[in-house]
């Protein structure tokens, strides 16, 4: 069965067609939900909600955009709605990162740990840091750098311009770097503390 056939049959209420579409797209949708909310329980709820919305509205799908884009747009909306409910009123969904005022450079790096050379960054650190990104940055970063969507697709999914997608991605990457540097500093502090404690015990 092709995706187009499955869509047509699903619009007629065919059970096998619904399952075909679920199996075709479910893994990417679940991965997106998981990365956005960070825990399997919430990700399962969101995935179910996204697919139920999709299947209830499938009769309205006219093929103006790709089906996967339509599905991902619905998923992102469901996820962001949930995250907005959980966000404290004073916090915005996106934070701005301002370049250094004096030099206009990306960041002052004096004394900052070199993430590459120390080999301190691994997948666990990265996943933990992704979870700390503001939802808007997190969405664009996951869609582009993890799931491989292009900016024109992301713009379609998120209802923004290509330029906005690029800008959000750059800010997300910059913010992730800051978070990872902080993570590395924290680990180094903990290791020094442990070494100090052990030295104190040995004396």
């Amino acid at each position: 069965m092709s995706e187009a056939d499955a869509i047509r049959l699903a619009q007629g209420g065919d059970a096998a067609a619904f399952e075909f579409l679920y199996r075709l797209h479910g893994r990417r949708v679940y991965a997106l939900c998981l990365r956005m909310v960070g825990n399997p329980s919430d990700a399962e709820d969101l995935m179910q909600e996204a697919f139920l919305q999709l299947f209830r509205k499938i009769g309205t799908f006219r093929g103006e955009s790709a089906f996967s884009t339509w599905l991902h747009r619905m998923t992102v909306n469901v996820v962001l709605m949930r995250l907005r409910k959980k966000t404290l009123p004073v916090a915005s969904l996106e934070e701005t990162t301002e370049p250094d005022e004096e030099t206009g450079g990306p960041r002052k790096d004096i004394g900052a740990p070199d993430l590459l050379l120390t080999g301190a960054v691994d997948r666990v650190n990265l996943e933990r840091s992704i979870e700390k990104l503001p939802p808007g940055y997190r969405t664009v970063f996951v869609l582009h750098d993890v799931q491989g969507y292009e900016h024109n697709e992301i713009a379609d999914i998120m209802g923004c311009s290509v330029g906005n997608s690029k800008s959000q991605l750059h800010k997300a990457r910059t913010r992730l770097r800051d978070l990872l540097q902080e993570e590395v500093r924290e680990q180094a502090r903990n290791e020094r503390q442990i070494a100090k404690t052990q030295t104190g015990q040995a004396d």
Partner: protein
Amino acid sequence: MQCRELDVFFEEEGLAPLSAAARQHLSECHACKHFFDDVTGIVALAHQLPAEVDPPEHIWISIRTELIREGTIRGFSSERAAAPWWQSFAELFRSRTWATAAVAMVIIVVAFMLGSKPREQVMQVQEDPYSSTVTALSQQEHDLASMQLASTGETSAVDASLRQNLQQVNEFIADCERRVREVPSDELAREYLTNAYQQKAQLLSAMMDRGGSLN
């Protein structure tokens, strides 16, 4: 090119390909080179993260059950009596290759039990080969009923769907057990009963993992 201009370049053009001016600046500015190397490494690591993850099977079961209930999936009668007693649930096992493996496993286990037990126990096993399964599932259901609700303190849509699925499975098991008692030679009924026990075990396991409650 100044540092701020390089930042704008990264924002508008990404990390690759670099313009000649960008490359020149990176060769001269340690801070920007440091930034570029770090972000390039982060992106490379992000590419290694799995873009797809297998969702738990019970999600599809919950979605499907809900779509049938509200009539989005058509062709399923809400009157169970209108369809053959087993047909309303047969679809759920249609695509489940594990159900075939599960049936084979049960047959092997029962055959082993029959071969290893004394005659009087063999007669008992033949009369009720599912007794240990029923006992185990009843105990698991009792344990689940004692568990607290999930930490959110709310009933999620998935939890509600799982409870609904469990109720449907229990009703189907009751039908199958009645059929097996009335017509012990009905192999199809036994097969569906075995599959239904497996389904119930999987549901209970999923519910326990989520910390759900039957109450």
